C-alpha cells in the first residue's frame, strides 16, 4: 500500500496556473525521471487532494516517460494515475499502463445540437425525459438490443464487428447518419482493434450492453444555452450553437466490457512486469509493460476494442435520443436539426505524433480523466474543425452544468490534453448521508431541473456539493491557453442510472 501524505510537497510556480514538483522529491529507486506538473488556480491547488501530488510524482518515475507527468485541475485520487493524469511515453523505450487509461476505457462525452429553443422543449420536458428514460436503458443490469422491439439480439460475430469497427458499424446498420462519423474522435473507430485479444468473459459482459447508459456519474441531459453563457460567439456559431438553444449531452463509456478488459490485463501484467521485464513501480496499481512487448501490443489491441465498443455505445444512445425526440415532437430528427457536435474520449491511450525538443516523435499518450484538446492545425481533425479547433466537452455536476471548449495549438504543452469534468471532492457514502435522493430530486425540480433516476441513492451520490467548482477548473485551462471556453450549458432535464 502506498503511504498517505500529510503535507503537500514543495511546489515551484511555473505560471499562475502551473505548479511543478522537482524530480528531487523522489530520488530513491525507482526515482522520478522527469518533473511532475499540476494545473490549477491557487484556490484549486490549496484544496487539491494530497494524494494527487503523491500519485502524479509516482507516475513521473515510470520508464520512458517524456518531459513531465501532468495532472489537470479536476484531479483527484484514482487507481495508479490520479484522475486527471496525463503522461506520454516513448514508443520504443516506454511503457503502457492500464492505470493510466482507467477501468472504464473510453468513458467519454457527446454533445448534440438541435434547431429548437428551450421554450420549444419546456412544455414537453417531462414527456421527453420520460421517453428517454424508457428508450435508453440505464442503471444496474441495463441491457439493450435483446430487449428492444425490432432489434435483434447481437450474436458473438456481430459483437466482434462492433468492437473492431465501432461507430462505423452502427452507422452501417442504420443507427446513425454518415456525417456523424466526422464528428467523433478517431472518426468513431480506432484502427487496429483485435477481437482475438479479448476474453470470452469480456464478450459476455459487453454483448448486452451496447446502447446502455450505466450508472454512477453517467447521465443523459437536456441543456440550455443561455445567451449570457456564450463566451465566444464566432466559434459557437461555427459549431452550430445559438442563444436560448436546447442541446443534449451524455456521459458514458464501455460499461462492463471495458472493465473486464482492464481487469484481465492488469492480472496478466502483474505476473510479468517484474519477473520478465524487470520493471519496478512505486505503486502496484501502476503495473505496466513495455509498449513494444507482446503483452503491451495485445493490451493496446484489446483496449481499442473497448474504445470502439464505447463509440458504438454512444452512437446507439444518439440513435435512441433522435427516436425519442421524433416520438415526442412528431417530426423527423433531421428536420429538428439533431446533429452531433462532437464525441470525445477521456480515458484512453493513443499513439500520437508530437514535437519533443523540436523533433517529431511518436508517443504513447495516456489520458485518464483527461480529454484530448487538439488545435485546428492537427491533421487528426476533420476539415470542418480547421477554423475552430477540436470541440472539448467538459461534464459538470448535474446541478451546476457543463462546458463546451475548443482545443488550441498551445495545448501541445500538455500533449494536446485538458480537463474532463469538475472532479469529485466528497465520497459517495458521505454525499448519501448529507441528502436523500428523493429530497434532492424535489430541490432540483424547484430550481428548474427535472431528473429521472433508476436509483435514488445513486442520485444522492451525484449531488452538486460533492464536486469541485467547474468554473475554476475550466478557467484554469483557459488561462493556460490549452482549451478556450466557448459556452456554458445548464441542465434542465436529466436521465440517470
Amino acid at each position: 500500500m502506498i503511504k498517505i501524505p500529510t503535507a503537500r510537497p514543495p511546489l515551484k510556480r511555473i505560471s499562475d496556473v502551473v505548479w511543478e514538483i522537482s524530480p528531487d522529491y523522489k530520488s530513491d529507486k525507482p526515482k522520478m525521471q522527469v518533473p511532475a506538473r499540476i494545473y490549477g488556480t491557487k484556490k484549486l491547488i490549496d484544496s487539491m487532494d494530497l494524494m494527487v501530488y503523491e500519485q502524479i510524482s509516482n507516475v513521473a518515475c515510470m520508464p520512458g516517460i517524456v518531459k513531465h507527468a501532468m495532472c489537470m485541475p479536476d484531479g483527484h485520487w484514482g487507481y495508479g494515475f490520479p484522475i486527471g493524469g496525463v503522461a506520454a511515453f516513448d514508443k520504443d523505450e516506454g511503457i503502457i499502463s492500464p492505470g493510466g487509461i482507467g477501468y472504464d476505457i473510453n468513458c467519454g462525452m457527446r454533445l448534440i445540437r438541435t434547431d429548437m429553443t428551450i421554450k420549444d422543449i419546456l412544455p414537453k420536458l417531462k414527456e421527453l425525459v420520460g421517453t428517454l428514460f424508457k428508450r435508453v436503458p440505464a442503471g444496474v443490469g441495463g441491457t439493450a438490443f435483446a430487449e428492444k422491439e425490432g432489434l435483434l439480439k447481437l450474436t458473438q460475430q456481430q459483437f466482434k464487428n462492433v468492437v473492431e469497427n465501432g461507430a462505423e458499424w452502427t452507422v452501417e446498420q442504420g443507427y446513425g447518419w454518415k456525417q456523424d462519423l466526422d464528428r467523433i474522435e478517431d472518426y468513431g473507430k480506432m484502427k487496429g482493434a483485435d477481437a482475438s485479444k479479448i476474453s470470452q468473459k469480456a464478450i459476455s459482459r459487453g454483448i448486452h450492453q451496447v446502447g446502455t447508459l450505466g450508472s454512477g456519474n453517467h447521465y443523459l441531459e437536456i441543456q440550455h444555452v443561455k445567451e449570457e453563457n456564450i463566451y465566444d460567439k464566432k466559434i459557437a456559431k461555427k459549431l452550430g450553437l445559438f442563444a436560448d438553444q436546447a442541446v443534449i449531452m451524455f456521459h458514458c463509456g464501455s460499461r462492463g466490457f471495458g472493465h473486464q478488459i482492464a481487469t484481465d490485463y492488469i492480472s496478466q501484467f502483474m505476473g510479468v512486469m517484474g519477473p520478465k521485464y524487470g520493471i519496478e513501480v512505486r505503486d502496484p496499481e501502476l503495473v505496466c509493460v513495455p509498449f513494444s512487448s507482446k503483452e503491451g501490443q495485445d493490451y493496446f489491441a484489446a483496449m481499442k476494442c473497448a474504445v470502439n465498443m464505447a463509440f458504438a455505445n454512444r452512437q446507439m444512445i444518439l440513435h435512441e435520443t433522435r427516436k425519442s425526440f421524433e416520438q415526442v415532437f412528431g417530426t423527423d430528427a433531421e428536420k429538428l436539426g439533431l446533429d452531433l457536435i462532437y464525441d470525445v474520449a477521456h480515458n484512453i491511450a493513443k499513439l500520437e505524433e508530437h514535437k519533443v525538443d523540436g523533433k517529431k516523435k511518436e508517443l504513447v499518450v495516456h489520458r485518464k480523466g483527461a480529454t484530448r484538446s487538439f488545435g485546428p492545425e492537427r491533421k487528426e481533425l476533420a476539415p470542418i474543425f480547421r477554423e475552430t479547433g477540436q470541440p472539448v466537452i467538459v461534464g459538470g455536476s448535474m446541478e451546476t452544468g457543463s462546458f463546451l471548449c475548443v482545443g488550441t495549438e498551445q495545448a501541445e504543452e500538455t500533449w494536446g490534453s485538458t480537463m474532463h469534468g469538475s472532479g469529485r471532492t466528497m465520497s459517495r457514502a458521505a454525499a448519501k448521508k448529507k441528502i436523500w435522493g428523493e429530497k434532492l430530486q424535489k430541490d432540483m425540480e424547484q430550481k428548474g431541473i427535472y431528473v429521472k433516476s433508476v436509483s435514488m441513492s445513486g442520485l444522492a451520490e451525484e449531488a452538486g456539493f460533492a464536486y469541485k467548482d467547474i468554473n475554476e477548473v475550466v478557467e484554469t485551462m483557459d488561462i493556460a491557453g490549452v482549451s478556450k471556453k466557448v459556452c456554458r450549458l445548464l441542465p434542465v432535464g436529466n436521465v440517470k442510472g
Partner: protein
Amino acid sequence: MPAKKTTSKGAAKLASKFKFLEKAVTADVAFEAYGKSLNEVFENCALATTETMVDTATVNQRMQKVIKLQNKDVNALMIDFLNEIIYYKDAEQIFLSKYEVDVKQKKENQVWILTAKIAGEPLDYKRHLLRADVKAATWHKFELKQKGKQWTATVVLDI
C-alpha cells in the same frame, strides 16, 4: 408488488457483517467486512458487494449456482471471487444474494481452492431496489488480515 426494503433489524444484522467506509475513497465505494473464519469473511465481502448493487432484502433465492475458483494467492482469490459475482450481474443479469463459501489451501502445492454455493435470482426491475452498477473489485487499498480469531477485509469497488 412493492419491494420489501431492508428493515432496521435487517440493517443491524448487516452491520455486524460489513460496513461502508465514508472517507476511504471519493469516486467509488469502499467497505470493510468481518468474519470469525476465512470462509465467513469471504461470504461477507460477497454480501457487501451485492448490497452495493441492490438491497438484498428485495432479492429472493430462486436459483442456485456453484462457483469454483483457485489461485496461488488468497488475496487474489478474494478479488477473483468478487469479480465473478460482478460478472454474473452483467453477463446473465442475475443477483446472487446468499453465500456459503469454503476456502481451503492444498497442502501439496499451497494453491487456494474456493467452492461457493450461492443463491439468487434474475434481475426484476419491479421488485429489486437497485443501487450502484458495480464494475470491478480493485486492488486499491485492498487488505485481508487476521487478528486473533477475527478476520477483516477492506475492498474498493469501482462504480
